[in-house]
């Protein structure tokens, strides 16, 4: 089981001090937060993607590559990568590049993005959000698995003889999570390809997410990837910790009340009761998090949102201390004890390589010499048969 933190990259005024960090300060802070996540023993760091203020994370692979250079174990991922407004060709290239630079310590989570004005800035239309997401992923999937792709779809310029470079590390594509909280088509796509399914598990009661996760598990089995318990499920959650419940509530309340998404709406107590939010002592957060497994079955990845709504970086680093020292070790132990021994292991680059090659050496693609063009012939790689002989003959 993997534990980590996910950030949406909001730059929000601290409602207690009144201070709004600069973009530079917040970007520096997120790097410290990610590095500290590894220091306290967490497994995963995820960054969101946005293309409008007050968010900073327009370029997740740049940030993740930097964090990758500063860490050794941490798995770097996204929450989420926009599969609608990004060109899937660029996604294939950028994330494969990241995968090489961080030695496979990465995966990505795809989401649609729900900010309507962003779509036209990238030449798209939110009303086509779902078909865009589905079609774009179909292409991305092939770009990482076929050296040369011919492709024609509804939304993007057709491709003829296109090779996405670099090929994935060890010719093993990054693991993909499909994030969704209300769209069965996304769960279906995750199941069809045997990819992971992630429910952000933040805004609504657990019953809301249960239906889609159950559907994903059933369809995963239907498509022959293994029994339902082998399906790969990730969950979000949000927590605020202090030594005791009263302090946690007192410290978090001003941030909750002003939080961009749910502030000025429900009371914190109602939100705690109705949604997966945990505010409290380490034991309270442990107890609440353990209920997720009861609701959703054994799952592979638990992500917490802890750095939003204007919380200052020092507070977030302390949250990480509590999470890493007092909460996650207990959760690891408790969940391991309850786990079905046949439940899926969380995906890593090593496990994917093992699944693809067994004990054999992974493929290491080496390009043929530059022919002055890259659109003729079968494969541009030395270990593949060229369908058309090079001219002039070497």
């Amino acid at each position, binding site marked *: 089981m993997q534990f980590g933190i996910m950030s949406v990259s909001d730059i929000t005024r601290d409602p207690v001090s009144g201070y709004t960090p600069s973009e530079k300060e917040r970007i520096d802070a997120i790097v410290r937060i990610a590095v500290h996540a590894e220091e306290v023993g967490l497994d995963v760091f995820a960054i969101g993607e946005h293309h409008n203020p007050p968010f900073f994370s327009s370029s997740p692979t740049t940030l993740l590559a930097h964090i990758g250079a500063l860490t050794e174990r941490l798995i770097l991922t996204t929450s989420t990568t926009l599969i609608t407004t990004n060109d899937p060709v660029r996604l294939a290239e950028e994330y494969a590049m990241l995968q090489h630079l961080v030695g496979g310590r990465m995966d990505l989570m795809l989401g649609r993005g729900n900010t309507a004005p962003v779509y036209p800035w990238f030449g798209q239309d939110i009303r086509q959000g779902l078909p865009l997401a589905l079609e774009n992923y179909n292409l991305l999937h092939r770009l990482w698995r076929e050296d040369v792709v011919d492709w024609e779809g509804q939304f993007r310029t057709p491709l003829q003889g296109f090779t996405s470079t670099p090929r994935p590390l060890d010719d093993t594509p990054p693991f993909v999570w499909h994030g969704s909280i209300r769209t069965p*088509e996304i769960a279906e796509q995750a199941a069809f390809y045997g990819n992971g399914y992630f429910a952000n598990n933040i805004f609504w009661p657990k019953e809301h997410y249960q239906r889609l996760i159950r559907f994903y598990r059933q369809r995963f089995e239907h498509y022959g990837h293994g029994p339902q318990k082998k399906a790969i499920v990730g969950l979000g959650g949000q927590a605020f910790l202090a030594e005791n419940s009263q302090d946690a509530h007192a410290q978090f309340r001003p941030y909750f009340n002003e939080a961009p998404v*749910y502030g000025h709406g429900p009371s914190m107590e*109602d*939100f705690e009761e109705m949604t997966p939010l945990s505010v409290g002592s380490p034991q309270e957060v442990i107890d609440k998090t353990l209920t997720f497994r009861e609701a959703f079955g054994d799952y592979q990845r638990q992500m917490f949102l802890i750095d939003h709504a204007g919380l200052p970086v020092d507070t977030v680093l302390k949250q990480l201390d509590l999470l890493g020292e007092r909460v996650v070790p207990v959760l690891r132990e408790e969940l391991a004890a309850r786990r079905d021994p046949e439940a899926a292991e969380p995906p890593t680059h090593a496990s994917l390589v093992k699944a693809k090659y067994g004990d054999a050496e992974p493929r290491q693609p080496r390009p043929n010499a530059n022919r002055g063009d890259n659109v003729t012939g079968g494969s541009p790689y030395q270990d593949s048969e060229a369908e058309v002989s090079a001219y002039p003959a070497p």
Partner: protein
Amino acid sequence: MTDFRLVVVSAGVSDPSSTRLLADRATQRVSALARERGHAVSVTTVDLRELLPELPAALSSQLLGPRFTQAVDALVAADALVVATPVYKAGASGLFTSFFQVLDNDLLIGRPVILAATAGTARHALVVDEEMRALFAYLRTLPVPTSLFASTEDWTDKALGQRIDRAARELVLLMDSGFARAVRDDAWGSYQHTYGSAGGTELGIDLDSDMMRLATGGSLRSGDDDPFDPRGPA
């Protein structure tokens, strides 16, 4: 004979409330007329003012508290509705419209509804037909032809009683016709649903759709584009 489940939604905020009174009079008449036709009627009343504490969360975060959830459960099971609101500033009360705006679009498809409003002046009379009827058309309910409106002077006029009787009769006939149930049983699939759009009462997930084919590696391009495509023209 069939039992009918009637749900009364009242946005009156005082106690006693003339809005609630109007709704109750309509309800009593519906029950009596249904009994004459051999149906028992069970009535559930949703007093929206009791949902007020949960309204901010519902409006801002689509987060339904326990009372809201109870109200939705009652509506899911309803065969017909009586809905009543006071008129404020030439419109149905904000509490009333907020409640129905929070509900899933598909929750009330085909349900017969009596529309009722109260006001301090007859100048508000058209709110029922011009505003409330549009809202309930959007929800694809079946408002009865006779609307109920009561301003101060109507309470002493026996014409109000006659209109209540007429609206109740219309509602009973529509309930008796089994229209709402038939729509759900026979024609449910022909409405545009989104997953989760009827509080979980929408049927299973439709796997046989263009989007589902696209989700599983298919293409959106129709057979028209390619004369050799075995799917043929769309």
